């Protein structure tokens, strides 16, 4: 990360600046003390999924001089997380808490932020509002853009045009990934379909394997997913000899033959920015959201499953997204025949955050 410039000297300078400028906002005197970042994960750090994506980014932060990273994994979304965070603050002197699971926010992060106004809290989902404490905040990436790229590559790499999607729950963020995957696939294969199976749980490996097998049995020759840990889906699909696209983190090592590419977060961009700002004694933004245009997501390097056409098409799609070219271009119908999107939607349009339908071309039902 070229824009990190955190040395002990710059920390000291920042400290001196903090002393000089007593008018700095409350809490920023923290910049004098060494920066300790406490990160809480809901699952294991090596889950080939959501938690690993965060953990990979933390490894980058750990190399930054003056930054100490403390981590705790398998912390449930109950008062256990309040306690872990509070323990990081009280026993380890953490001054920035990164709470990486959706259910950590309310009430746990919000209540602790009120209790410890000198500690900064950032949470990985778009939940912060003006009504919440100023020392809390959200960061979020629109991963559906990378799923769109997956779709573009999958549409080109799939002989049959029948794609499969193993999804956890029919909530907006998942539906958006499925729909974007379909729209991407239709860029390279206008007849492509995406068959979806919802497992109903974020982590239910047995059902994920069953769903993968069912999709392959139904004729799908590219499988992707949106579950917490895509390992089972990718490995099962690889075992059945079909191609795969990944989700959350890199699953390339799991599928040496069939891996095409995968939708990955790039949390390091956000975390480095936080570390940088704290070292300078500047306030952290309360809300950060992004996608391809600001380097917050990425696609896994192409695997053996990607054909030359798929690679060319996906590279072009990435260039389009960096230029903020829209994914959702109306008129689009849902798979019950109702028009759901009339015109062009900006990729960050909040209307898309409330998505409650599957587009025409997706085989499956959210109920």
């Amino acid at each position, binding site marked *: 990360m070229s824009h990190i410039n955190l040395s002990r000297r710059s920390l000291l300078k920042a400290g001196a600046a903090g002393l000089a400028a007593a008018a700095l906002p409350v809490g920023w005197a923290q910049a004098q003390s060494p920066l300790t970042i*406490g990160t809480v994960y809901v699952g*294991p750090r090596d889950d080939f999924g959501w938690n690993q994506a965060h953990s990979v980014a933390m490894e980058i932060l750990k190399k930054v001089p003056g930054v100490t990273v*403390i*981590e*705790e*994994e*398998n*912390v*449930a*979304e*109950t*008062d*256990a997380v309040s*306690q*872990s965070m*509070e*323990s*990081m603050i*009280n*026993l*380890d002197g953490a001054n920035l808490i990164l709470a990486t699971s*959706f*259910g950590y926010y309310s*009430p746990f992060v919000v209540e602790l932020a009120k209790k410890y106004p000198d500690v900064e809290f950032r949470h990985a*989902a778009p939940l912060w509002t003006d009504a919440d404490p100023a020392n809390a905040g959200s960061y979020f990436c629109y991963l559906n853009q990378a799923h769109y790229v997956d779709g573009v590559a999958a549409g080109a790499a799939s002989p049959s045009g029948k794609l499969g999607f193993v999804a956890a*729950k029919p*909530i*907006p*963020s998942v539906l958006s990934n499925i729909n974007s995957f379909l729209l991407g696939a239709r860029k390279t294969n206008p007849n492509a379909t995406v068959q979806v199976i919802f497992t*109903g749980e974020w982590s239910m490996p047995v059902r994920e394997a069953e769903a993968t097998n069912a999709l392959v049995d139904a004729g799908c020759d590219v499988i992707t997913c949106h579950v917490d840990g895509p390992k089972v889906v990718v490995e099962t699909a690889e075992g059945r000899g079909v191609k795969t696209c990944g989700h959350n983190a890199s699953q390339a090592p799991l599928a040496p033959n069939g891996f095409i590419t995968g939708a990955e977060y790039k949390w390091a961009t956000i975390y480095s920015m936080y570390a940088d700002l704290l070292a300078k004694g500047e306030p952290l933004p309360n809300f950060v959201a992004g996608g391809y245009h600001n380097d917050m997501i990425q696609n896994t390097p192409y695997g053996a499953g990607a054909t030359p056409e798929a690679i060319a098409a996906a590279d072009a799609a990435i260039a389009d997204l960096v230029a903020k070219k829209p994914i959702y271009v109306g008129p689009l119908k849902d798979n019950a025949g109702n028009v759901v999107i009339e015109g062009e939607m900006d990729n960050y349009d909040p209307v898309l*955050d*409330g998505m409650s339908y599957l587009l025409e071309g997706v085989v499956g039902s959210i109920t």
Partner: protein
Amino acid sequence: MTVASPSVPIHRATSVRTLKLAEAIFVPVVALIASALIFSLFLLVIGQSPLDFFALIWTGGFGSSFSLQQSLQRAAPLILTGLAFAIPARIGLTIIGAEGALVLGGLSAAAMAIPLVSGGAPVPITWIFMALAAMAASGFWIGLAGWLRHYRGVNETISSLLLSYIAIAIMNFFVEGALRDPASANKPSTMPIGDAYRIGAIPGTDVHWGFAAGILAAIALWVLMSRTTFGFAARMTGGNVRAAQAQGLPVGFLMVTCCVIAGACAGLAGFFEVAAIHGQANASLVAGYGFTGILVAFLARHNPLMVIPIAILFGALAAAGGLVQRRMGMPDATVLVLQGIIFVVLLASDTLYGRIKFFQADLRGDRT
């Protein structure tokens, strides 16, 4: 219980009781020390310092008022789920469905809160109705397992476990459907009860009232099981069902009642999870407290009073587990390994009861 055979004089009976108590303390303490030694070997094998580890466990579990409060708070649901296993165990039933009962209790409490909160009902009344709804629903649920066992011959371990999965599915069904707060887009939840209706901490601490409720429940159930005819009849049934039936004890009633009590305990834990922790019901209620409660009850040898310190020990291990992860860079599973070792060693130590001469010597001479 082999208290005082008729030939033992009164003063002897007292000293026998003291010896029994000493044995009941001595055996688990030795087992804990043995577990610590075995675990130290494990740590040495993986190249970590046992001294650092146990120092961190102390710091994180009990070392400061902050740590202690964390341990107590984590113990709160475990006391109640521990009781949910211990009470049926006294009557010979192995009920492992507290997880689902807790979830169902939480859902019922949250559902009961919806009309009361929107109608502006007084806070204490709301809490009472929420708690009653939780205890009734969960009591019914585990009661079902007891009923199936006695009247239909269905193995209660299997049925309670399966009922647990059904309870979780019911919670998901309602939380994602009829009871869903439309604002909870990406994490389906019921309507929040709001700050005004949240149960706060015990004054002067960060520990919520569920801990106090757990202790009261443990004491009450100890009295019930040890000092009443109901408890005596239940324990007798647990010892020998046939004998109990031959004596004319209402075995079916006793079994179902013990199960209902167990369910009510788990439901109460669910109520506190909703009213004190989450403020709403959602999938976060499925946190494993019900299953940890089984370990707690086993280690407490199904004694309601012993459930309290064991739950606190487990709470402390969980609280300290985070610190161990952070300071020593060890995986979360480390503390699970320690818990597993403690569990196995404590169960194995059961065979020591009655075999250490020191604690038995007195009786020998008096028995004929």
